[in-house]
């Protein structure tokens, strides 16, 4: 079984092959900068970190450039290298890559080391295959030279080079013992890559490398790290972004046994203590007594009133849009000419990530403040280095980052400022000792960075025959990208893609489409959250399409099939999921089915929910959920199923119960008693099919999330004849709709 290293083993192996003491190391960097493409062994002592290294004993180390939060990239990416290398997977050891963007940066994130958007496999796939093939070719060339035969006469079996003519064989380890890496990566043409039919690993399920440690308590998350001399830290942060601490009862805090000191920070107050229990008691004492200077924007903001204002602005055509987010044809002009115009309004609330590991980090700032060592779980190694460097005013080479497994990410751990890491850094700087900084669950909620509120006003124009010719949307939403990552916002030319993505319907045959953004900035902390803009935007589109189908009196699945006439892959997922759910049958008494289709970054999904409603309590029960997903070549099919189960369950929470409200700028919820997430008793039977195609692989990590709310919403309409216009579809809202 493939193994993952514990951190100490990992440090050892990383050092070992950065030095390149034995075996053969490779750092070909696929047409990136020349220095990054130099093989490690050829640099005359300068330790460049390689992508892969083969030991004389046959062990193959392959770097994992993505961070691991449960999505499986730590397995899938090295496996792609191993496929083209034709490596024996049982001899492969994956190693978290060091922070070197020139070699390991994510092509899907402008070269940052950044794991998000379900794009790790999608973005690295082509390069990792090429790299694996290059390494294999170097082994073949060395074997050919050694045997003095033509390289064309050689073939490979897993980790073995074979010369069939003479019956000779050599293992990769044996070759590594004498081989030399060339100065330049060998040229591999696309046709020299494996044909999908020859894949031994891609498309075949392997045990995820980090799973064994996740059933016996040895898997290490940052909250588990202890370093010598470490003390504990906690932070009470202003409930509103921009607020600064005024007064608190310092004497009371310091009187707690074990508390060392308090630390006044620009945005809050920190507590340092000898033990975890003392720091939590100290934190509590600060929280009970602290008052805030009401600096910052969101003080006074009320999300209920804010939503009303957003909805009014979306519907009031005299309120100008801030920008034309998406424009195809002339939706406005066609609406004016349409035989029928239908309209609809929808609203989506704030929501919270609720990753199981409350945010935390460990930092050890040198006594003179000129360097720091950090242990944390981050979705971006690049930001995990840059944020501490900025906080201390030091260069990034003075930051040593140890990134660990994450107890969930969901978009919360990739903000430009990585504030939870900086919390640890600032406390360690003040303490002049290593500090483990932990947020409580209440901190994690109160300091939450939320899926934004949005209000949508839609109009559709139908021609005489009922065909949808124009689709027009005005979307008022709380901004995300400029808050989460001002740098990427700048690079994206001020496009708030985290909020707006998903409004485009590229796979549907609707010739004239428009979506205007009404930019709003409440000052509330916001974030990418699993499904990003797709969750709200596909909800409104698929629910409105259902309304149109009902108005036209045609079957909702038939309507989608009409709209997908130029998208065969879309039709295939729709037809198959309809078949799986036996769509068109008469549902059991008290139950109904609802359908939705989404395309999400080139992955295509069909979903059908079967629900019932308790009219007394207002609780929607989802009994079954059928789902098809075509995400191209399935690299690890069972993991795609697992991720889809996961994203559906996450989507159920967004659809049914998860709601954050803001009063006077502050989040009102605190813990799992007032922020209800899905439990085992809440989940439906899930029936998921991966539709494998030979298209390049696309994402799977979050694609099911946006599918759920519209399918459930449409089922509710089919069951009750009422349309719910808000997510989450809470019991109160259900009861109100049915009253």
């Amino acid at each position, binding site marked *: 079984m493939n193994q993952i290293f514990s951190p100490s083993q990992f440090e050892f192996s990383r050092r070992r092959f950065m030095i390149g003491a034995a075996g053969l190391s490779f750092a070909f960097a696929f047409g990136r900068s020349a220095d990054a493409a130099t093989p490690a062994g050829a640099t005359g002592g300068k330790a460049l970190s390689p992508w892969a290294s083969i030991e004389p004993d046959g062990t193959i180390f392959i770097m994992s450039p993505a961070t691991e939060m449960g999505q499986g990239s730590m397995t899938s990416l090295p496996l792609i290298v191993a496929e083209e290398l034709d490596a024996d997977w049982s001899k492969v050891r994956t190693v978290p890559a060091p922070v070197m963007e020139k070699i390991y940066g994510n092509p899907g994130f402008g070269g940052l080391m950044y794991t998000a958007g379900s794009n790790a496999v999608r973005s690295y796939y082509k390069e990792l295959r090429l790299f694996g093939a290059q390494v294999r070719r170097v082994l073949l060339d060395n074997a050919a030279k050694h045997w003095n035969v033509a390289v064309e006469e050689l073939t490979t079996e897993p980790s073995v080079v074979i010369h069939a003519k003479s019956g000779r064989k050599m293992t990769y380890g044996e070759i590594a013992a004498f081989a030399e890496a060339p100065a330049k990566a060998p040229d591999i043409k696309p046709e020299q890559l494996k044909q999908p039919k020859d894949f031994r690993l891609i498309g075949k399920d392997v045990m995820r490398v980090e799973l064994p440690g996740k*059933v016996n308590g040895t898997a290490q998350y940052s909250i588990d790290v202890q370093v010598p001399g470490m003390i504990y830290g906690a932070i009470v942060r202003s409930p509103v972004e921009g607020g600064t601490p005024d007064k608190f009862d310092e004497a009371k805090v310091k009187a707690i046994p074990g508390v060392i000191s308090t630390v006044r920070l620009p945005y809050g107050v920190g507590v340092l203590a000898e033990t975890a229990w003392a720091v939590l008691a100290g934190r509590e004492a600060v929280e009970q007594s602290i008052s805030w200077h009401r600096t910052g924007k969101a003080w006074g903001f009320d999300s209920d009133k804010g939503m009303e204002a957003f909805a009014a602005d979306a519907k009031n055509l005299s309120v100008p849009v801030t920008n034309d987010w998406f424009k195809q044809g002339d939706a406005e002009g066609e609406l004016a000419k349409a035989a029928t115009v239908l309209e609809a309004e929808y609203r989506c609330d704030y929501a919270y990530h609720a990753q199981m590991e409350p945010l935390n980090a460990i930092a050890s700032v040198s006594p003179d403040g000129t360097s720091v060592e950090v242990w944390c779980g981050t979705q971006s190694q690049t930001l995990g280095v840059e944020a501490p460097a900025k906080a201390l005013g030091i260069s990034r080479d003075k930051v040593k980052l140890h990134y660990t497994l994450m*107890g969930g990410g969901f978009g919360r751990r990739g903000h430009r400022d990585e504030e939870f890491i900086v919390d640890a850094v600032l406390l360690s700087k003040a303490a002049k000792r290593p500090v483990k900084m932990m947020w409580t669950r209440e901190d994690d909620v109160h300091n939450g960075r939320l899926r934004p509120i949005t209000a949508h006003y839609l109009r559709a124009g139908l021609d005489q025959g009922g065909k949808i010719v124009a689709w027009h949307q005005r979307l008022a939403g709380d901004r995300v990208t400029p808050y989460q990552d001002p740098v990427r916002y700048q690079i994206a030319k001020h496009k708030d893609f985290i909020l707006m993505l998903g409004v485009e319907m590229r796979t549907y045959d609707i010739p004239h489409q428009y979506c205007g953004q009404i930019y709003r900035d409440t000052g509330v902390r916001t974030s990418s959250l699993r499904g990003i803009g797709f969750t709200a935007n596909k909800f409104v589109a698929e629910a409105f399409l259902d309304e149109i189908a009902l108005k036209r009196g045609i079957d909702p699945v038939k309507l989608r099939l009409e709209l997908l006439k130029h998208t065969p892959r879309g039709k295939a997922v729709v037809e198959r999921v309809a078949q799986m759910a036996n769509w068109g049958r008469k549902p059991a008494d008290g139950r109904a089915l609802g359908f939705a289709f989404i395309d999400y970054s080139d992955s295509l999904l069909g979903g059908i929910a079967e629900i019932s409603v308790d009219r007394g309590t207002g609780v929607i029960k989802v009994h079954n959920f059928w789902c098809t997903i075509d995400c191209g070549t399935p690299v690890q099919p069972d993991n795609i199923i697992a991720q889809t189960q996961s994203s559906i369950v996450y989507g159920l929470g967004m659809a049914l119960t998860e709601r954050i409200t803001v009063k006077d700028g502050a989040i009102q919820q605190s813990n*799992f008693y007032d922020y209800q997430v899905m439990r085992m008793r809440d989940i439906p039977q899930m029936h998921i099919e991966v539709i494998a195609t030979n298209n390049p692989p696309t994402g799977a990590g979050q694609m099911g999330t946006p599918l759920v709310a519209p399918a459930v919403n449409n089922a509710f309409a089919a069951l009750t004849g009422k349309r719910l216009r808000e997510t989450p579809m809470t019991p109160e809202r259900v009861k109100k709709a049915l009253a």
Partner: protein
Amino acid sequence: MIQFTVNGKAASTDAPPATPLLWVIREGLKLSGTKYGCGVGLCGACMVHIDGKRAFSCQTQVGEVSGKSVTTIEGLSDDSSHPVQKAWLAEKVPQCGYCQSGQIMSAADLLKRNPHPTRDEIVEHMSAHICRCGTYARILSAIERASREG
């Protein structure tokens, strides 16, 4: 000084008796497989066994376990050979994995007292937990497998 047994070995702490057992286990005894998730007994990431029965270690004061026997995920087996651990790998349950120690401890507790639970009994018992990755379907399958394969 409070004395108790953890995974069959004598343990002690000078933490105040009202300290949650969770923090003593994790930070004092360095058994970090037991996780902090909510601190209020609502997520189950901190689940351990006390005298053979499941308990939220975040809701148990360390003073309460004086003289008692605590088992954590590290003590469930020496080599991941407990039927529940084996089933967890066979069904590839974990994703982020953070909640899974607690889930496994609860599942082991259930099967010890009820070797062949019905599906409803499993759902009832395990709904004390939250898995934010939504691995519930696989947890259910793994418990059924462990029950079957013992």
